[in-house]
């Protein structure tokens, strides 16, 4: 089976509720008094007409300004956000490293959380049992592993999350700005592992603001701007384009706005 990601004409909208989530009370009262519902909902196009095919062997970097839709695109590939229009077809097993440590239960011990977190990532009990020792060894938390993780420092927390998330070599790797936390020694070790995963996966997609990292690791780069793919091609050219064209837009937008704030 060849691994691939195909996205065709995908649109994705977010609804933003100004005040709060709708209440049944208001709907009923609105119906009874025949008052039309005051519209406090605004729609926001997070992704517009996305067409993207990623084949096995490709290392795709996604760059763009904050709020351009990079994380949303990753979450659409994972299946968390289904597109409102269009199609997303993924062949292969996805390992998302989007937010590490999802589902950590602070009352439970580190060891119990290894199983819980692994389960949420779709691993079986047997797999987690086999990897348990390796995860603990990598996280360097041997002494504390049977302690409830609410007593962990945020660094320890991050180490454990990273060790669980990166234990298995993925078929399709999706990474959203993963920075290993902890001491220098661990960061170095974690970076090595990340590189290993990146080069050994069939497909890798990396969202990052670190342009050097993207240029080093990826063989294809797309630029997302306001929910649209505005550029797609070789890393060096695309990044150059991004620095010259897109990042400038941000500067122009923020400069006049920032000046009056300084005065007041």
């Amino acid at each position, binding site marked *: 089976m060849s691994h691939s990601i195909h996205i065709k004409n995908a649109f994705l909208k977010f609804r933003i509720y100004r005040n709060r989530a709708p209440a*049944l009370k208001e709907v009923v009262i609105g119906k009874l008094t025949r008052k039309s519902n005051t519209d406090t909902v605004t729609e926001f196009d997070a992704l517009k007409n996305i067409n993207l095919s990623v084949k096995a062997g490709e290392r795709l970097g996604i760059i763009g300004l904050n709020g351009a839709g990079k994380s949303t695109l990753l*979450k659409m590939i994972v*299946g*968390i956000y289904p597109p409102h229009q269009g199609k*997303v077809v993924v062949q292969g097993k996805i390992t*998302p490293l989007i937010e590490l440590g999802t589902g950590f239960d602070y009352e439970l011990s580190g060891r119990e959380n290894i199983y*819980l977190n692994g*389960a949420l990532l*779709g691993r079986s009990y047997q797999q987690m049992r086999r990897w348990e020792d390796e995860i603990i060894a990598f996280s360097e938390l041997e002494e504390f592993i049977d302690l409830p993780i609410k007593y962990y420092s945020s660094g320890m927390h991050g180490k454990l999350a990273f060790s669980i998330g990166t234990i298995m070599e993925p078929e399709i790797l999706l990474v959203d700005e993963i920075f290993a936390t902890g001491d220098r020694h661990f960061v170095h070790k974690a970076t090595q592992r990340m590189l290993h995963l990146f080069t050994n996966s069939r497909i890798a997609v990396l969202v990052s603001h670190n342009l050097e990292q993207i240029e080093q690791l990826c063989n294809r780069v797309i630029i997302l701007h306001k929910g649209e793919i505005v550029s797609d091609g070789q890393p060096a050219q695309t990044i150059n384009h991004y620095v010259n064209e897109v990042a400038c837009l941000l500067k122009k937008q923020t400069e006049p706005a920032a000046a009056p704030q300084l005065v007041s």
Partner: protein
Amino acid sequence: MRVAQPESTLTHPASLSSLEQAVQSESTGQPAWDGDQLECSQGSESAFAYMLRSVAELKNIKFALASFVVNNLRRRYRRSVLGFAWSLLNPLMTMAVMTAVFSLLWHSNPKTFGVYIFTGLLPWTFITDAITTGSQSIVQSEAFLKKVYIPKSFFPLVAVSTETANFVFSLASLVLLACVVGVPIYWTILLTPLAVALLFLFTFSISLLLSIATVYFRDLTHIIKVGLSTMFYLVPIVYRLDMVPADYRKYFLLNPLYYFIDLFRQLICNGVVPDLVHWAIPAAVAIAAFALAFYTLVRTDKDLIYRL
């Protein structure tokens, strides 16, 4: 596990070949729940196909389901001195109070009426707890649902399964207690797992339905609470159906909850195997509720995440 590897080689952190083999066995031996032919297109899937896919997805994360349930139970009892005993003591004390009050009120024999109350009160407590926690489960799991791909029915299933485990423990303990006290126990008690299964299907379906509705109308939580406490008096739990004036009895028989509780009562309290009709009514209600819940889920599945 599928791969025949001596344990010792697998525990070496640096043994890369074993890791690769593990990955291979993973990709061939087990269908992947989070990606293999993941397809999100607009409205192309039938309700039945959707249900089959959901069941397959849930099956693939059954370990996650089990860990959530076990952790929920563990957390519930870990920090208390009496631990698990609370699940027994709590209904026991409620039951004692209710028995005292209502046997005085109705001039009944406390011993037989006590058994009558507990066979009604335990399933009722289960229904209330399961629906209350289950109906909030999707809203409360917003953080999960936005970070990992997981079927929406997972969290109501976890909530109801946790309560079911609790229910079975307290039921078993109280039956044991009844033996000790000298209340007669009938062989028909062996059929209670069937009744538990039907009640499980019913409460899961209702919880799923209400958990979806709660996403759209957040104030439903309060309405559910009031509704459940009203229902408590509309189902014969602390009184017997024959105490109700004959003219009104037919309205009580329209309540589907009555039939579920009646099953437990017949099997444990009266030692009677209910006739086919008394099995068929709750079974039909449970299946209808299940179908309705899944139909609602199919219709709302693609929209739900945007409403959280």
